[in-house]
């Protein structure tokens, strides 16, 4: 080891389990999140594998129907609530926001640790329900199935999600306050890295939306336990009201899942084309626009539910409107590459993958926002394909890209370049093979959440299962080499990519207090022309 690497940093200041479990250092908490998130992703992924295994053949021959229903419910719950939503904010957001704005920590470090504990407790609670039989309601918990018919583990799962919801609220709150009050001198709003803008927009959704799902799930649990009947038609309740309350959160929640990934992409694209981002203001503003508009479209999940046709019209047009800020982002990223100095390192491969797959997945969202068309494709595999394109092809690509980009900063080590490129390609190919056939399946009419299906759908399902196996391998490769690199990887320089941004001005890995002295910011972000000494003066 060189002298350099033995320098004191946040990883080696203190050792022992206790120093991790009681830490309030945002960087260590990020690592805790990384562990939790990977764990829940693996569980969700294994369940996905079992789903695909069952769907290899038309009859329901591998599992019982009951088991199959629990598989996709658990898959959805784990992936959405315990992987996607806490994922990028918990890991990259925690690690980077204070570094990027030149702060020593987030505004409420102890609260930050509490968030992690709530997340883990919530996740384990939900897992407990799975181990003991499990829920079979689908991740959407539609009433009256969840409140009157399914089993009592609904209550436990709802409580688990409720707890994790508080974690999400507190994380959002922490980030909002941090960005408002902790910016270093000179770090004005318009000098903030776009990653922080994205996380800010995410925070807005988290604090405004999450409480509504919390109360809704609480009512579902209460209804199940005490026979209240708020959503039970036999007692005068309206199941569609549940859907309103559920989607008031859960639609904005899909932007909780995509905005952080978009935020990562904005950073990657500039860093690997060594060029200021094209249309900084438009990208920043479109994040906020997405956050606000996202609250006005929830009814597009209810076009055939018996919602009023006029409400449907309004939800439809606004759903189309949310597409515009997303389009603005895509075009600005593309324009950033133009006349850049583009280097194809792994993070950029992921970023380009994101742009392509998100564009495609997003455009298929427009199919669903069109009233007449959604009637046919609603609750078919078309929907499944749409959201996996965005969440797996989009968010996970963004997350992996970001993880590769900042890995040298996080761990102080370099990952193996060759393997990382291989895995990026494996994931890309496996992904498309898994989910593209599902669009066709969906339009042909295969309903989702089907344990058994008519034989004419088999060919496409076999393709999908084949793709999923490739995809699974693609995900295991990075898992292995990241762990490998922590021990055997080459030491990383402070700024291995030659990127701008305060996080690259401090050692890799950073010291506990992040910066030796509080940085003072004097210029715009992504100023590659004059990067280095002049614009970002440390001291």
């Amino acid at each position, binding site marked *: 080891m060189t002298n350099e690497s033995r320098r004191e940093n946040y990883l080696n200041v203190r050792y022992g389990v206790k120093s991790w479990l009681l830490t309030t250092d945002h960087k260590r908490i990020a690592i805790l999140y990384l562990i939790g998130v990977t764990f829940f992703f693996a569980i969700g992924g294994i369940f996905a594998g079992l789903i695909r295994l069952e769907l290899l053949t038309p009859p*329901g021959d591998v599992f019982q*129907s*009951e088991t199959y229903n629990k598989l996709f419910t658990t898959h959805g719950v784990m992936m959405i609530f315990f992987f996607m939503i806490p994922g990028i904010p918990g890991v990259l957001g925690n690690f980077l926001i204070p570094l990027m704005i030149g702060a020593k920590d987030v505004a409420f470090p102890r609260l930050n640790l509490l968030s992690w504990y709530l997340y883990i407790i919530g996740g384990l609670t939900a897992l407990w329900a799975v181990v003991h039989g499990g829920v079979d*309601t689908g991740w959407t918990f539609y009433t*009256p*199935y969840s409140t009157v018919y399914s089993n009592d583990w609904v209550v436990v799962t709802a409580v688990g999600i409720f707890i994790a919801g508080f974690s999400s609220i507190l994380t959002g709150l922490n980030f909002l306050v941090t960005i408002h009050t902790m910016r270093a001198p000179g770090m004005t709003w318009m000098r903030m890295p776009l990653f922080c803008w994205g996380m800010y927009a995410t925070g807005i959704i988290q604090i405004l939306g999450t409480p509504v799902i919390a109360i809704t799930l609480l009512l579902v649990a209460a209804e199940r336990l005490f026979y209240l009947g708020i959503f039970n*038609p*036999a*007692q*005068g*309740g309206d*199941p*569609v009201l549940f859907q309103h309350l559920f989607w008031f959160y859960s639609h904005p929640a899909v932007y909780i899942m995509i905005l952080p990934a978009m935020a990562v992409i904005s950073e990657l694209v500039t860093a690997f084309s*060594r*060029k*200021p981002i*094209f249309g900084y203001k438009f990208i920043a503003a479109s994040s906020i626009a997405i956050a606000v508009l996202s609250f006005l479209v929830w009814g597009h999940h209810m076009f*055939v*539910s*018996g919602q009023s*046709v*006029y409400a449907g*019209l309004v939800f*439809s047009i606004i759903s*189309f409107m949310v*597409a*515009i800020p997303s*389009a*603005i982002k*895509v075009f600005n990223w593309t*324009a950033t*590459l133009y*006349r850049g*100095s*583009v*280097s194809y390192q792994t993070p950029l491969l992921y970023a*380009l993958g994101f742009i392509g797959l998100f*564009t*495609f997945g997003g*455009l298929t969202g*427009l199919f669903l*926002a*069109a009233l*007449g*068309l959604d*009637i*046919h494709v*609603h*609750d*078919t595999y078309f929907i499944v394909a749409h959201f996996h394109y965005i969440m797996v092809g989009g968010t996970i690509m963004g997350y992996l890209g970001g993880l590769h980009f900042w890995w040298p900063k996080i761990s102080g080590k370099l990952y193996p370049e060759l393997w990382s490129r291989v895995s990026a390609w494996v994931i890309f190919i496996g992904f498309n093979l898994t989910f593209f056939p599902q669009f*066709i399946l969906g*339009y*042909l*009419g295969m*309903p989702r959440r089907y*344990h*058994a299906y*008519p034989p004419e759908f088999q*060919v496409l399902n076999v393709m999908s299962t084949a793709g999923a196996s490739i995809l699974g391998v693609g995900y295991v490769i990075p898992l292995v080499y990241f762990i490998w690199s922590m021990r055997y990887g080459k030491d990383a320089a402070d700024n291995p990519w030659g990127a701008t941004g305060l996080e690259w001005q401090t050692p890799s890995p950073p010291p506990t207090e992040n910066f030796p002295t509080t940085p003072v910011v004097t210029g715009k972000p992504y100023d590659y*022309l004059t990067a280095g000494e002049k614009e970002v003066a440390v001291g």
Partner: protein
Amino acid sequence: MPFFPEQASTFARNVDHLYLFMIVVTAFFSLLIATLVVVFAIKFHRKAPDEIAGPVHESGLLEIVWTVIPLGLVLIMFFWGSSVYFRITRPPANALDIYVTGKQWMWKIQHTDGHREMNELHIPVGQPVRLTMASEDVIHSFFIPAFRFKRDVVPGRFATAWFEPTKPGKYHLFCAEYCGTRHSNMIGWIYVMTPADYQVWLSGGAPGETLASAGAKRFTEHACNTCHGDQPGARGPSLAGLFGKEIHLQNGQTLIADEAYIRESIVNPQAKIVAGYPPIMPTFQGLISEEGLLQLIAYIKSLSSAPAAAGGMAPAPTPAPERKSSMP
């Protein structure tokens, strides 16, 4: 391998056209973005490790262009999608009435002439069909891919919807809303028949009593007739000729009596009080099964139509309820 399910209803083609348009837009933008990204990445590949790109020339014009073009496209999609949707929502006047009850995990279908089916529906080609659907337990969804037709059946209220098959054949019926363990077994077949075959089918099998007469039985069973008996001094209004009539409510509103109104009058009578009557009718929520409600309604409807309407091609055609206001 087919990419489309069969087009077997009047609006299947409309939906497919919209779908094709969306595919074209999607293909265009996906290819555009993919091509640009790949071309830029190759063309502006970093040549020296310390190379730095030139300055960025922001362009307000470009931003406007790539905001306005997608905006225009989505507006087209919106109007197109909505017009298809409105076509699907508006039933024609001469529809054949079919009553559907969803139940974990089967579809029970009642024809007005008394024919009952399970997970199967026989209908004549070229005849608009109007479904009045109810669920006994959880939410189900009546989905016929070949017709591009789907409608959730939410317990606690009716779902009414229609379609018109255009091609004889046998088509999938799926339950599209997750409804519990055997959701994927809640499937069946739709048989679209030529009028001649349909007549044969109708005359085969012994239909039980008609829906309306089953409803009439329930009417006395639940003692509705004690108040709605048409005798002088009855406590409730007469129900003869009620269906499709304009009703004046106590609070001054008027509305047209349709299935949903009659249903509400039975399960939540306090919601809309008929002018001139006291709010004394008890609620029957939870006391009458969904099938029973459908029968009662068929009975009340039969009080309005010509008495000899049963049987024949289109038993008891229902008047198209008029639209109250000139909404779009």
